[in-house]
């Protein structure tokens, strides 16, 4: 399989997943899109192994490795900061000594109301987008650093 054919194939898979997403919303079946997504990614990985003109050498592997490592280094800090904030919201029970007459804030807000489960999907998607942006940014940076766009044929 040629590289361009592979990219077209990815486009077709993406369109099929979009259609399945819409259909799973219509029939209220989240398992359908979840399973379809996993199968789609596996198919793309399998198809990638059939691509003949996509050469991966030690330099490209190094770029991928460093970009992934830097993404992880930044992402875990953001993820941890968000998680700490979320846990703080759930554990908002003041335990320090207070002045007389201090009234504790009402504890009628339970964790599900603070962060409904439905909202978690949006948050996770946001974090996933952040991770993708970070990876793409780092990849561009290191690809440039290791001479991906140099041109001077002798």
């Amino acid at each position, binding site marked *: 399989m040629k590289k361009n054919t592979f990219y077209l194939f990815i486009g077709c898979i993406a369109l099929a997943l979009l259609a399945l997403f819409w259909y799973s919303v219509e029939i209220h079946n989240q398992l359908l899109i979840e399973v379809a997504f996993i199968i789609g990614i596996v198919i793309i990985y399998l198809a990638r192994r059939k691509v003949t003109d996509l*050469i991966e*050498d*030690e*330099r490209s592997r190094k770029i991928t490795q460093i970009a992934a490592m830097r993404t992880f280094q930044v992402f875990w800090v953001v993820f941890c900061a968000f998680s700490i904030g979320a846990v703080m919201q759930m554990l908002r029970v003041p335990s320090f000594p207070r002045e007389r007459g201090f009234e504790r804030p009402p504890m009628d807000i339970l964790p599900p109301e603070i962060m409904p489960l439905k909202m978690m999907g949006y948050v996770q998607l946001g974090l996933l987008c952040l991770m993708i942006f970070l990876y793409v940014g780092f990849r561009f940076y290191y690809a440039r650093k*290791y*001479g991906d766009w*140099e041109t*001077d044929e*002798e």
Partner: protein
Amino acid sequence: MHDMTQEDLAQTIGVTRQTILAIEKGKYVPSLDLAFRIARHFNVNIEEVFTYDEEVRSVEID
């Protein structure tokens, strides 16, 4: 001496032309394995193709 293009060399030793170009320009320091493959391709010792440059190495580490 060796009338060949970067593309020819890249194909022969199994890397991309960009890698050959990056090595030539000092933007990428090849692994020992790749350095030996390049040297063997030209039938010379590795020291005749590559020299150790402290400054390039320090940039690489950064």
